[in-house]
């Protein structure tokens, strides 16, 4: 690992100032992804700014919803009564991720910043990775791509966002609060992540020096009808082949009143198409409606040599997740 400087600010302003004064710095949360990448030599920060001591570790009611501080540990969020009662899909998503040890370390803010996953990106001894070395090409497109994207990829990069929590946040329309040299601002989860396009080296729309301070969950009184389905190759410590975060509200006669869903394991970011969700409104929960929304979400899907199965798996996973969410609605 390349030698680096270490700083541990005690205020957010100090953290942002430290970042501004050093070129090539990175904020350090739980380190569950960044440290791995540093060991591999993919990330080589000059300075690690340890932000785990910042006063950003509370969960509180806020504007009818809840506000989760960026430094709250994943496991704490998953077990918090407010989250479990009002946003069960988020709790389920977090618990589906990684392992207990990793969830105890990972922070909400850090987890949003985990890099997309691809074997050819994670190992710098592979020559071609536009994410790691812009312009160098992509070893995955014609290589081993079982875990890779089927939606929203580009000819530059087909990596997937491996997160679980982010998929639920996307479905819940969570808002990411950030603080930067120009002050605070916020973005919806849908505007936070990016598709690869011609700049796969950039995973999020966070500006340099900006620090995630909190994640706000909006007031959704019908979010109790939520379900997170993770389809993977083993029952723990495996990335999603496909995951679905589904939130469904029913009206008094059992028809779908509201529905929001996002997919994981299919794209460079959690995948959500609000227009597609509208096909569910007014429908009776069932295979017909579920298939229609799946087709709408899969519009433009392009699988590769080893992940063709994902297309059909998305259809089946959406049906299963919506069935479960509708049952709980």
């Amino acid at each position, binding site marked *: *690992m390349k030698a680096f400087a270490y700083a541990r600010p005690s205020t957010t302003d100090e953290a942002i100032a430290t970042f501004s004064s050093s070129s090539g710095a990175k904020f350090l949360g739980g380190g569950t992804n960044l440290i791995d990448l540093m060991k591999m030599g993919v990330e080589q920060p000059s300075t690690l700014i340890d932000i785990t001591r910042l006063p950003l570790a509370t969960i509180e009611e806020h504007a009818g919803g809840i506000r989760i501080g960026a430094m709250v540990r994943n496991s704490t969020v998953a077990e918090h009564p407010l989250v479990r009662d009002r946003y069960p899909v988020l709790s389920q998503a977090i618990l589906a991720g990684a392992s207990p040890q990793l969830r105890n370390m990972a922070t909400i803010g850090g987890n949003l910043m985990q890099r997309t996953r691809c*074997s050819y990106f994670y190992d710098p001894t*592979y020559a071609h990775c536009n994410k790691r070395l812009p312009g160098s090409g992509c*070893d995955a497109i014609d290589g*081993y791509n079982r875990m890779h994207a089927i939606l929203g990829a580009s000819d530059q990069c087909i990596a997937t966002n491996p997160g679980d929590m982010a998929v639920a946040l996307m479905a819940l329309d969570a808002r990411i609060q950030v603080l930067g040299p120009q002050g605070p601002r916020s973005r919806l989860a849908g505007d936070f992540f990016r598709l690869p396009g011609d700049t796969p080296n950039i995973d999020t729309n966070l500006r340099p020096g900006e620090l995630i301070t909190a994640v706000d969950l909006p007031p959704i009184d019908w979010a109790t009808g939520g379900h997170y389905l993770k*389809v993977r190759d*083993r029952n723990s410590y495996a990335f999603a082949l496909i995951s679905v975060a589904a939130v469904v509200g029913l009206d008094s006669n059992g028809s779908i009143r509201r529905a929001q869903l996002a997919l994981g394991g299919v794209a460079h970011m959690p995948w959500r198409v609000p227009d597609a969700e509208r096909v569910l409104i007014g429908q009776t929960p069932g295979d017909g409606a579920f298939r229609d929304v799946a087709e709408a979400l899969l519009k433009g899907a392009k699988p590769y040599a080893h992940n063709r*199965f994902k297309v059909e798996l998305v259809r*089946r996973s959406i049906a*299963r997740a919506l069935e479960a969410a509708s049952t709980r609605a």
Partner: protein
Amino acid sequence: MPSAIGEPLDRVDGRAKVTGGAVYSAENNLPGMTYAVMVTSTIAKGRVASIDSAAARRAPGIIAVLTHESKLKLAKSPDDISPDSAADRRLQLLQNDRVLYAGQPVAVVVAETLEAAQEGARLAQVRYGPETPSVSVDASLAGAFIPERLSGAGDPGRSSRGDVQAGMSQASTRLEQVYTTPFQVHNPMEPHATVAVWDGPDGLTLYDATQGIFGARKRVAGLLGLAVENVRVLSPYVGGGFGSKGPTWSHVLLCAMAAREVRRPVKLVLARPQMFGPIGCRSETRQSIAIGAKPDGTLTALKNDVVTHTSSFDDFVEPASTPTRKLYSVPNNSTTQRVVRSDIGTPSYMRAPGEAPGTFALEVAMDELAYALTMDPLALRLKNYAEQDEDGQKPWSAKSLRECYRMGAERFGWAKRSPEPGSMRDGHTLIGWGLGTAMYPARRSPASARARLNRDGSIQVEAGTQEIGGGTYTTMTQIAADGIGVEPSRVIFRLGDTQFPPTPVSGGSMTTASTGSAVYLAARALRDTIIQRAVVDRNSLLYGAKPAQIAFENGRLSRSDRPGQMETIQHFAAGLGEPYIEAIVNAAPGQEKEEFSPMSFGAQFAEVRVDADLGQVFVSRMVGAFGAGRIINAKTARSNFMGGMVWGVSFALYEHAVYDERLGRIVNNNLAEYHVPVNADIGDIDVIWVDEADHHVDPIGAKGIGEIGITGSAAAVANAVFHATGKRVRDLPITLDKLL
């Protein structure tokens, strides 16, 4: 006296292991220690064009950067392997610029700290002259050859009895299918690790994570030009090996060579990604099976043509055809093995080499045949039960397979199985039950042991051997205790040091039969010596008795004709004129293998629950019933069988080292992506065994249990998946995409 053998004695080293008191190779920290990191090739074939080590040498803490240009001296070529050492491999020791596989060591960086060495390794700029590698069977099939001998027992590369073509023509039901198993990598929890310390130019001590300290000593001494007795190898604890720590691989020598260069102790530990390539793997297998049967299920012909990989520079042949030769009674039987040369690190022994993939293909084929015949899969096996080894034309030394089938089926509830695939359903879940037969040869090699009674009454028993997780400290303690006639708590067993009596590699499931026999015979010899001394000792109450009249139990010597006259071993020892008395025994197998075919068998039953829509498979229940000779420790044996069965689940559903065939590199070279089951993937596992008395294998009647658990289990899972889903997956692993 209650026998210690067979008791579920807690591991005598258990406390040391869970408290950190057990020191593993990489945990040896010596004064002046330096740290070595290998730079490994990122191409699979070609040459090292240049290595620019200037930046690495400038980095803080770097002591040396060793490359092929360093011209490190060896006493002989690393390609010079001894024909009588089955575990010797051709090594890559920076002797030239050739790259033979991805992950080959091409440089070694030595530094004051591990971190500095890692950074130095990253900074060493290696430029390659790459050539196009070949790692697939199809690409190399034209050059396939039939080996004279298979690895392991050295069975011939082909076998034949009767006339398979004629047998197939007599069959009413015929089946021909191809089964494949993928590249697999051992991945013991403890990475390979060596600490090398020179004592002058002629003496070397290695703390090495090895399954064979004597093999390592011989290989290292030979390559470095040292007298064998001037090399000491210590390995008191090994964190799993599964075959990968049997051969002495390149890193062991590179560590010793680096220590000679820098004149300080060197520690070299492989990083997890470096465990995919330079330390062996299980070859992919492609098995083409043909079976013919009469309407009542009687086999008329059985054939298996196997293709496996070896490296471009060394020969290892995964002996996958052997189960087809021996498991069933069939008059017409033939097998061939062909090998393709690929640009990979040499494959090697991996838990049940041959039998693990071989029983998968054969036992899935038998399941397919049972469905084709509309016959219960268990009934089909019993119909073709081999009463003798028809391949070796010898009687079995002992065979309890019929009893294993009966006990296993009863415990599992096999009789309640509804034969139709897909007929057992619970909501979204399809339930399936499957069966596979387990088999593994009972092997034995020469071994020695020393048993010593000290004046303080303690008993110290020593044999070189290794503890690779199976429980050797504990089982040897029990064997020694019974052999002498004392409680196990009185015996201290020591191992893992080439200064102890020589023993074989901890492999081939032969530690108990080999080293256990030596320990037993040494213990008996010590017992006899004690008795003989006691009866001529005028101070002893036993004076004047005939040795045959002396009973030796629970640490007490007593006259069987005068029960009141007894002496404790403590008292006897205190009267010794010398500090200790000891017995050293060299034990070796006799002619039993000429007369008998020593084989263990077992029956594996699996229940799977498959998500009907999503294809996810969960093995909810397994029963394994084994007939494997005398069981030394009911607790460690259960763990060992269970570990094998879990690996069978892993074999069936998870493990697959994926090559990027363009580059010849394993893409998933880490434990996040090379999947083995986690706790959440394993359901209930029930292990039972037959109380089998095998009087032919060795003095203690033990056949070894380290490997049989993995055999037959992958087939049981695969057959259960078919029973659940009606989908026959012949290419492992059975990932969910194959069931959609």
